[in-house]
């Protein structure tokens, strides 16, 4: 009955009696009924209260919870104290479910008098450790006292750490709250970014954060607060949530809080959301649109995801278009324009019109293509559809205004069109154009005026005004021919129905028609009318949206919704971070006090363990691990604020290290260590700790050769001063197109489990973006293995040998010529080996072919034909390139299975009318895929590959090649090998497997006295082994 919307309140007494019913279903329905009608029948509702009070004491948590829920939903002022009492009681209930409901009840009870007490309850609940409660209580917090930030301080870290486990709805709320919190509590990372940019001129090779460290030293400006970092790190996994709202919330958090270089990671997830229902799509697209205006780079790689499908609803089409336009830049404009061409033909005319506007915007933003766009638009003028034509006229008008130089032709063309076009806006635009540039088209202009004067009466107001304008302008420039016409038009205008037009007519008449009264003004008439008009800026409608917080309702509506809380600006000075330092012992006690759960006790234990810096037994259970994780974060932040504390962990050798000319303070070191090294061994045997080493190494990339040599010298210096150090900086001058410093920053982590009597070594995951990325020097653990995992990989090693194919280290890639431009009639092609695991098949080596058009004509239909491959070899062609613009170049990737031989792959590269024989011959080093393995495994494998399978040579090594760094770099350059951690300083080991057959390839370089070295290669594929040996020899012996 309620469902039908009828008023059922007269039945109230009868229904209320049922409240005591034992039947739960009836009870529930009565609850529903009560919530609806209690307000109207307050006295009667009171009857039921006692039942609820009894229910609140029920042993079943469910009944307690629902009673509380209904009780708080009864909006009867008299019972507020009772409710208050109930909430208080429930907030210390044993069951988290009831506590959760208590948190919900708080919002319902919102009443100014009770506020103080409610805040107390909230404070209490905020301290709760249960993930169930966290979401609800933050919700209540937002409702009741969003400005009481001080309540959050103590719970900030806990919330951050719990975040992953909170249910999804709670996550959304918490993230939003934390965003606001962080905005008030931390200093902006952005200011620094700008500074960093200046800095990076000299310091390419250093990572962002390092610079921040340095900045702090030098200018005393900014370091990212560890708590801030903690928040960013803990929210990152949530990007993979299945709930779109959570992903969006994290995205906005990153957008508003993360340094610019890091915000990019959200784009991938947002693009993923585009797959879901259209409502979600709509909102996500809106947000992307806003983001893409400010930071184009973020979404550029995903350009194609925004291509429009004909089945999309119009609103989504236009949004996608908007984003495409925002993303347009010099590099992608040609593809975009081609795409736009298709859109223009769309059946959805509204969308077609929007496309034209988009083209216009692209044209103004990117000057190179303005002419192309203009030509394209002019072509569109002959389109049969009126709306399209009209829209293009308007856009052309705007475009012409921006560069009025020499477009007389177009204007003439448009003047001709005037006869056919009926859409008023377009007509008005044409008239305006003619008027504006009437001097350039002296013959046509008066003619146009004549025509329009004839049809003046039937025109739209907008057009009439423009006719008047045109008349006035012509009168001034060419009064002989047009005087009569203008006067005729003015007369018509005088008796027009629209007052606007009458006014305008009068105004113009006074201005231009010379009579006795016209004084000073008419002299300036010409100036007034023919003044240079500034070109209008074509802007995105999303420009002004960025002042709203992303992902909020206000943002979607582009207007302020009630309850919208403005994000505050970054504070100038960070408030005291110590407020967040929870008194650990106390709170730990409290947690256990409240919950008395195993889990929590464990947490406490872990905590104390790390506090006391001992290796204690750790349970290998997953939950234990999770706790450990949380704990570890706390420990980290703790240590970074207290700096020195972390020099523990068994391998407490002093961590010395500085990466570059500027010294790092020891506190940054310990910070680093804290964040990266952590271990637990299960057995209580303390000495085990000695056996487990882990090390961490980063490769910071460099772009310029100069900077690369810079670091090399630095690190070799280091190497000589501290002979055991094995910090490594890998130079990479190849990746010139690297996007941002942070994404370039490759981290890697190697674990070695040497003797490890116990089998489980858990490595705590280390986040991609660690606050400090100084190459760490940990002297004893001579472990390193560069791998280019952009994602961080924490490996969990068991005793069994784990051999992973890792991604290769980027080294300066050698480009080989495939086709010279002279022999290819202007078509040039180069190839290089990208060293990525074959994307076309496991056994394929991927080859990047860059094709360049050096002619001044388009080359069409580039494809591969007539493959002449030795038996067994296979090739995955690239998709044919439809057309290559003059001076354009395109990079395609193809896969070739070389069958582990160095035979050439010959094929023909064909264009539309030519074909060229080309061939690709792989250097043997490219037929390998690097693998990581431990030294132990290496030795084991090596032991199996002796005798026939071993080839070796002794070579003289140039003196400058004798450091570890240089050797690794040189070997990596020559062949795609993975570095194996080595225990001895003079032996370097590399491992790889062949791409086709996957047989292992082990390379050992042992440095001897008097600058010679023993080079040993163990492999089943002896042929390749010997070829590789031959190739490696000069690499090492050369200076």
């Amino acid at each position, binding site marked *: 009955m309620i469902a039908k919307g009828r008023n059922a309140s007269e039945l109230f007494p009868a229904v209320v009696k049922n409240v005591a019913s034992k039947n*739960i279903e009836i009870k529930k329905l009565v609850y529903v009924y009560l919530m609806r009608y209690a307000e109207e029948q307050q006295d009667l509702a009171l009857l039921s209260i006692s039942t609820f009070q009894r229910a609140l004491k029920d042993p079943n*948590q469910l009944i307690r919870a629902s009673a509380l829920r209904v009780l708080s*939903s009864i909006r009867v002022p008299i019972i507020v104290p009772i409710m208050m009492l109930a909430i208080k009681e429930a907030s210390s209930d044993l069951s988290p479910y009831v506590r959760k409901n208590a948190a919900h009840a708080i919002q319902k009870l919102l009443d100014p008098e009770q506020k103080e007490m409610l805040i107390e309850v909230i404070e209490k609940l905020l301290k709760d450790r249960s993930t169930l409660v966290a979401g609800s209580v933050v919700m209540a917090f937002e409702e009741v006292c969003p400005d009481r930030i001080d309540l959050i301080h103590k719970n900030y870290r806990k919330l951050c750490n719990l975040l992953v486990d909170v249910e*999804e709805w709670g996550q959304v709320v918490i993230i939003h709250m934390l965003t606001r919190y962080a905005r008030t509590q931390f200093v902006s990372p952005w200011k620094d970014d700008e500074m960093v940019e200046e800095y990076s001129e000299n310091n390419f090779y250093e990572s962002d954060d390092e610079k921040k460290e340095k900045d702090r030293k030098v200018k005393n400006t900014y370091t990212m607060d560890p708590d801030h970092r903690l928040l960013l790190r803990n929210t990152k996994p949530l990007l993979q949530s*299945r709930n779109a709202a959570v992903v969006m919330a994290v995205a906005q958090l990153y957008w508003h809080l993360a340094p610019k270089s890091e915000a990019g990671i959200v784009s991938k997830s947002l693009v993923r959301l585009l797959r879901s*229902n259209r409502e979600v799509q709509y909102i996500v697209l809106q947000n992307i649109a806003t983001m893409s205006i400010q930071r184009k780079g973020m979404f550029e790689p995903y350009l194609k995801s925004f*291509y429009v499908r004909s089945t999309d609803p119009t609103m989504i089409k236009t949004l996608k278009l908007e984003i495409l336009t925002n993303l347009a830049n010099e590099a992608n404009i040609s593809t975009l324009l081609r795409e736009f061409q298709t859109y223009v033909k769309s059946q959805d005319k509204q969308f077609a019109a929007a496309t034209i506007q988009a083209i216009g915007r692209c044209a103004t933003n990117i000057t190179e293509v303005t002419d192309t766009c203009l030509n394209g638009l002019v072509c569109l003028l002959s389109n049969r559809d009126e709306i399209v034509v009209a829209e293009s006229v308007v856009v052309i008008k705007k475009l012409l205004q921006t560069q009025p130089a020499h477009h007389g032709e177009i204007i003439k063309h448009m003047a001709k069109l005037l006869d056919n076009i009926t859409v008023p806006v377009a007509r008005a635009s044409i008239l305006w154009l003619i008027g504006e540039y009437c001097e350039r088209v002296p013959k046509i202009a008066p003619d146009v005026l004549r025509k329009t004067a004839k049809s003046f009466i039937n025109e739209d107001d907008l057009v009439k005004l423009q006719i008047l304008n045109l008349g006035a302008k012509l009168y001034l420039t060419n009064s002989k021919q047009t005087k009569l016409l203008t006067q005729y038009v003015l007369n018509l205008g005088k008796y027009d129905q629209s007052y606007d037009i009458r006014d305008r007519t009068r105004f113009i008449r006074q201005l231009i028609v010379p009579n006795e009264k016209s004084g000073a003004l008419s002299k300036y008439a010409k100036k007034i009318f023919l003044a240079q008009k500034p070109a209008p800026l074509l802007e995105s409608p999303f420009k002004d949206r960025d002042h709203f917080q992303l992902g909020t309702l*206000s943002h979607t509506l582009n207007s302020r919704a009630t309850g*919208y809380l403005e994000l505050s600006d970054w504070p100038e000075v960070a408030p005291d971070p110590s407020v967040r330092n929870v008194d650990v012992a106390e709170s730990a006690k409290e947690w256990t006090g409240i919950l008395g759960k195993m889990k929590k006790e464990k947490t406490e234990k872990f905590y104390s363990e790390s506090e006391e810096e001992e290796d204690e037994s750790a349970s290998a259970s997953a939950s234990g691990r999770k706790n450990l994780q949380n704990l570890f974060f706390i420990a980290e932040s703790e240590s970074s604020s207290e700096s020195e504390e972390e020099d523990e962990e068994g391998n407490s050798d002093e961590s010395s290290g500085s990466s570059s000319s500027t010294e790092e303070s020891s506190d940054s070191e310990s910070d680093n260590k804290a964040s990266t090294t952590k271990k637990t061994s299960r057995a209580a045997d303390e000495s085990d700790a000695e056996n487990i080493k882990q090390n961490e190494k980063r490769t910071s990339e460099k772009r310029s050769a100069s900077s690369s040599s810079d670091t090399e010298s630095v690190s070799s210096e280091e190497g000589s001063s501290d002979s055991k150090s094995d910090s490594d900086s890998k130079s990479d001058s190849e990746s010139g197109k690297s996007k941002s410093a942070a994404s370039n920053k490759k981290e890697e982590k190697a674990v070695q489990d040497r003797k490890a009597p116990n089998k489980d070594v858990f490595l705590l995951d280390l986040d991609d973006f660690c606050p400090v990325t100084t190459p760490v020097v940990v002297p004893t653990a001579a472990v390193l293995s560069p791998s280019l995992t952009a994602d961080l990989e924490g490996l969990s090693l068991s005793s069994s040998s784990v051999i992973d194919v890792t991604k290769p280290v980027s080294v300066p890639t050698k480009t080989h010529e495939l086709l010279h431009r002279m022999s290819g009639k202007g078509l040039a092609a180069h190839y290089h080996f990208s060293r990525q695991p074959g994307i076309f098949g496991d056994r394929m080596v991927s080859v990047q072919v860059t094709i360049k058009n050096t002619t001044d004509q388009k080359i069409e239909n580039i494809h591969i034909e007539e493959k002449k491959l030795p038996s067994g070899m296979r090739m995955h062609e690239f998709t*044919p390139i439809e057309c290559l613009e003059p001076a354009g170049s395109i990079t395609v990737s193809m896969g070739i299975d070389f069958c582990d031989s160095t035979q050439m792959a010959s094929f023909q590269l064909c264009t539309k009318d030519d074909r060229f024989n080309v061939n690709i011959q792989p250097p043997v080093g490219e037929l390998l895929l690097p693998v990581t393995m431990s030294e132990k495994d290496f030795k084991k494998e090596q032991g199996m590959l002796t005798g026939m399978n071993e080839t070796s040579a002794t070579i003289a090594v140039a003196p400058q090649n004798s450091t570890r760094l240089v050797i690794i770099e040189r070997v990596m350059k020559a062949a795609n090998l993975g570095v194996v951690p080595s225990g001895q300083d003079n032996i370097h080991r590399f491992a790889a497997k062949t791409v086709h057959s996957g047989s292992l390839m082990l390379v050992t370089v042992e440095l001897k006295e008097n600058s010679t070295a023993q080079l040993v290669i163990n492999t089943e594929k002896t042929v390749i082994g010997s070829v590789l040996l031959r190739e490696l020899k000069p690499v090492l012996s050369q200076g």
Partner: protein
Amino acid sequence: RHKIFFVAVIQSEVPPLFVIEFLHRVVDTFQDYFGVCSEVMIKDNVVVVYEVLEEMLDNGFPLATESNILKELIKPPTILRTVVNTITGSTNVGDQLPTGQLSVVPWRRTGVKYTNNEAYFDVVEEIDAIIDKSGSTITAEIQGVIDACVKLTGMPDLTLSFMNPRLLDDVSFHPCVRFKRWESERILSFIPPDGNFRLLSYHVSAQNLVAIPVYVKHNISFRDSSSLGRFEITVGPKQTMGKTIEGVMVTSQMPKGVLNMTLTPSQGTHVFDPVTKLLSWDVGKINPQKLPSLKGSVSLQAGTSKPDENPTINLQFKIQQLAISGLKVNRLDMYGEKYKPFKGIKYMTKAGKFQVRT
């Protein structure tokens, strides 16, 4: 969804996705409960709908949305139960505690028992692609999901590993998946909810080339003068790795000017709806020896000029036993329980938003 509008009213600032996501969840729950989500169904089950909503939402904040827990609170109606209920007068509402709320794993209820312990995983991949006039691919992406149907007794802890996890570019998980394990080892480790659920959905990076398994040859032309146009479509397989393409369905939205179409298919049936101008052609299986084609003429409205754009063709198809991205599940292990479950994995490739521009 399903021709019903679900509307939520909000009074103040709320993240809009939050609301939309919740509404979708509500519909999913209804579907879970009643099989379909239609107007009739909602009318029939008002009481249950009320109860469910009541549990899901409290004062505008979502409460319990996991269907496993909801089912424990409110038993889904079945015919059998309604019969029993009318006889015995008992209720649908669970009397016992929902233990799930207390357990560490909020998505799984305790005390699940099956006689046949089985776990099925369906790897379903969809290809989204735009193919242009000349047959070259403009964009192509693979989106995949792994749907699981797990009927296992007790609290099993499953791990699922892939042969080639690097293929997965962007993934989103069911909350049950342990994220850290994935980060470090690329292994899915989880305690599954009971029944059907979506374990993860993933995206295969657009950088990889996508092998398009189908090609469409088309020849659609309208002539300016006459009111007739030619229409011809042929569909054929390409790079299918020996699997047959099934369930092929071609739909195309004709321009407004089209009056009628007289077509003869070499295979399957076709329907043209003159009101919505929607042409759909149900092809069925593609036989590589004899390619299905649809030929005929289009009659246009007299007097109107020819439409300036050819219609786009949407394609649907299915390929069983093939994951087009090459993703393979390596193994599934179970810990925590003694028995040996029956495991099954099915692969399927479907066309998602597959469009051919003509």
